[in-house]
């Protein structure tokens, strides 16, 4: 694909595409300033000593050499540590913001596989190597991998997160400007790793709604999941009026779930996913471990609508 039409990368060309990106660039400035200061001092001293104290310059004053060194050692150790601590706190604080997904964020599902990015919207719209999002909204990407580890990277937004098979990963952002940005795979994933690229298209909300309507969909994501729910036989146990006693899924999402080992977990995306793939790992308290594993019987693409359907059942009992 051609990158020529895309906006240039990097802090030199496009600054502050998101609030987070602006903060990261500021942090970069701070790191560069500290480093430049240290390097300037070091190079000055190396140069000065090299010239002044060269063996050929017998005239240089070499009396009164510093004998007691520990004052100096303590001084520069303390100074270094203080600067390092400040940089640590600065970087850590921004990092924690990145971990804190806003509650109202719009979920969009991303499935990575060798060597493409597949995206599924709640309305059932699907795209490959493209991610359309509305301007100004918080976007929560819920990501999983069909095969090896990939890494979802939007350089202009200064964000990146690995997509590890067997896990559900989260990444969020809120864009400040409409435009087209790079989508890259940053974790080496085999032959065509360098071709696992695409575009992130940030659109005005109205244009985005229009775009959503123009896509061919076969039902919403939850609707597709409901069909799968019957097709895979889930409803036989979890459906209304089932003969086998299995945990009810209505209102499950976002609620605490007591487990048979006495612990309590929260039914989030990762829990629902794990419960389908590895039901014996976390057994809901008071139920027999009867459910078969769906590992290998269901792809990541089927899991996405299935989880979306189970999440949609929370609606009646109040979403989190």
């Amino acid at each position, binding site marked *: 694909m051609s990158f020529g039409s895309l906006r240039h*990368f990097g*802090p*030199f060309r496009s600054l502050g595409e998101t609030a987070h990106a602006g*903060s*990261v660039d500021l942090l970069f400035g701070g*790191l560069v300033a*500290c*480093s430049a200061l240290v*390097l300037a001092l*070091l190079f000055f001293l*190396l140069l000065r*000593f090299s010239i002044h*104290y*060269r*063996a050929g310059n017998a005239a*240089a004053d*070499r009396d009164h*050499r*510093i004998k007691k060194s520990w004052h*100096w*050692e303590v001084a*520069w*150790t303390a100074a270094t*540590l203080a600067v*390092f601590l400040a*940089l*640590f706190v*600065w*970087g*850590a*604080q*921004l*990092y*924690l913001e*990145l971990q804190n997904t806003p509650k109202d964020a719009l979920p969009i599902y991303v499935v990575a596989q060798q060597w493409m990015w597949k995206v599924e919207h709640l309305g059932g719209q699907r795209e490959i190597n493209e991610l359309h999002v509305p301007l100004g909204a918080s976007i929560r990407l819920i990501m999983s991998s069909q*095969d*090896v580890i990939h890494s979802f*990277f939007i*350089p*202009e937004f*200064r*964000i*990146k*997160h*690995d997509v*590890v*098979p*067997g*896990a559900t990963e989260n990444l969020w952002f809120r864009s400040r400007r409409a435009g087209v940005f*790079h989508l890259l795979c*940053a*974790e*080496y*994933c*085999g*032959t065509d*790793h*360098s*071709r696992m690229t695409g575009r992130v298209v940030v659109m005005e909300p109205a244009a985005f709604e229009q775009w959503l309507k123009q896509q061919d969909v076969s039902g919403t994501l939850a609707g597709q999941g409901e069909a799968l729910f019957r097709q895979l036989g889930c409803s036989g146990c979890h459906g209304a009026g089932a003969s086998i006693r299995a945990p009810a899924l209505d209102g499950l999402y976002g609620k605490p779930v007591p487990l048979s080992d006495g612990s309590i977990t929260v039914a989030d995306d990762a829990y629902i996913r794990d419960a389908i793939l590895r039901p014996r790992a976390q057994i809901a308290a008071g139920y027999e471990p009867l459910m078969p594993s769906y*590992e290998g019987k269901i792809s990541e693409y089927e899991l996405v609508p299935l989880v979306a359907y189970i999440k949609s059942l929370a609606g009646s009992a109040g979403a989190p």
Partner: protein
Amino acid sequence: MTERNYLTVDNTLRSWFFTTDHKRVAVLYFAGITLFFFIGGAAATVIRLELIEPQGHLVTSDVYNRLFTIHGVVMVWFFLIPSIPNTLGNFIVPLMIGARDLAFPRLNIASWYVFMLGGAVTLYAVFMGGIDTGWTFYTPFSTMYSNSYVVLAVAGVFIAGFSSILTGLNFIVTIHTLRAPGLYWYRLPLFLWSLYATSAILVLATPVLAMTLLLMTLDRVGGLGIFDPARGGDPLLFQHLFWFYSHPAVYIMILPGMGVVSELVAAFSRKAVFGYKFVAWASLAIAAVGFFVWGHHMFVSGQSPFAGLVFSFMSFVVAVPSAIKVFNWTATMHKGWIRFDAPMLYALAFIGLFTIGGLTGLFLACLAYDVYVTDTYFVVAHFHYIMVGGMVTAYFGGLHYWWPKITGRMYPEYWARAAAILIFFGFNMTFFPQFILGVLGMPRRYHVYPPEFQVWHVMSSAGASILAVAYLLPLFYLGWSLFFGARAAANPWGATGLEWQTPSPPPPENFALTPEIRRNPYQYTHDGEAVPQNA
């Protein structure tokens, strides 16, 4: 050559291949790692040629992936890790402590055979068709998806690991038990402190690598499932285990270089190292704290944010002792009698390049910035500043410094200075543009890349061609000096260590009489006259 020394004492092939003399083992290691250095370098050359052009027409993606993998595997395990310890260390450690040999001479030659066997197995994997996992062997790519000779290549690394352990063990026991009378711990030259710290990591971390690679192999061959989520395994577990070895391994690669630079700065400034005890303990602090920073390779992997905070903090902490060393080397030059022979040029280059590598390490330790630049060329540039700008530069510095001792010949000084300066400029021209690529967002391990990046890649490749010539130069003038170089005196640099108190090259038994140590290392008079440790 008529005088009796370790080179002339016996000249049959058998006497070389069955030698137990640490000096001859060092020469064997030198031959081995030089071979691997040029194999790894050849792969790098093709990589740089390929990247001149964004569409990647020179080789296919599969070949490109094999090239960077073999470059990493060969350079890390078959050049950098053994470089200073097994060549310069092997030669110098017994001489520096006034001993006749290492504590376990037969283990020493055995370690060379183990090392060469490991290298041969890995090279065999390359000739069979190579390996495309990257030197990090991340699962599940390496266990389930890679269609290359993973097991064979990994077997070579596994085998070579045992030579690391044997060498580390040998150095630890030697430094503990074979010091000459009067050579107390605080009288040890700093090269020995750094090798002692290195050896501790070699012995403690390498077994973890062996276990990790074994588990990975069982996963791939036997479907064990340790790292396979479908069987309840965890791909991230592999990363934890791998970096638990491989981050300390970074210190295996840089600590010996720091040790060499401490020797060089003192010898060519004619002054005791400033803050000797701080520099000595900084080596041990790096070795110890270095075991608790591995998670900084995994800030975006999905490990918990809390782990991210801890590992970020520890990574800043581990940079402090390195900073202490840099300050102390600089202070050592203050009011010295500084000479600029080639080894000192390398030492100065090391201080500058290592500091740039270290400072950019802080960018990567800094959580939010790492999220952006991890897995980009920023990381590639950073670790090449440490590994090549730091370790390889120190290795060349040490090689030139001890060359007269090892061969009994002086190298041609002007050629050597020219090469040192050429390496410095070639290196910066190759790797500084890669920092810019990283800051612009260019991911690493990309065969094809967006054309916006081309100008920086072309600059980097141009620098690499200078660097390649500069690295080839020593091969010629050092080779020339073996036959035509001026005869070296016992102590051509006016240094204070015990290794300079015996002829160049040393006799097989190193010292006619075990020297007695009467003073601290690096004692110079006010006018810069060396006072040997046994004077």
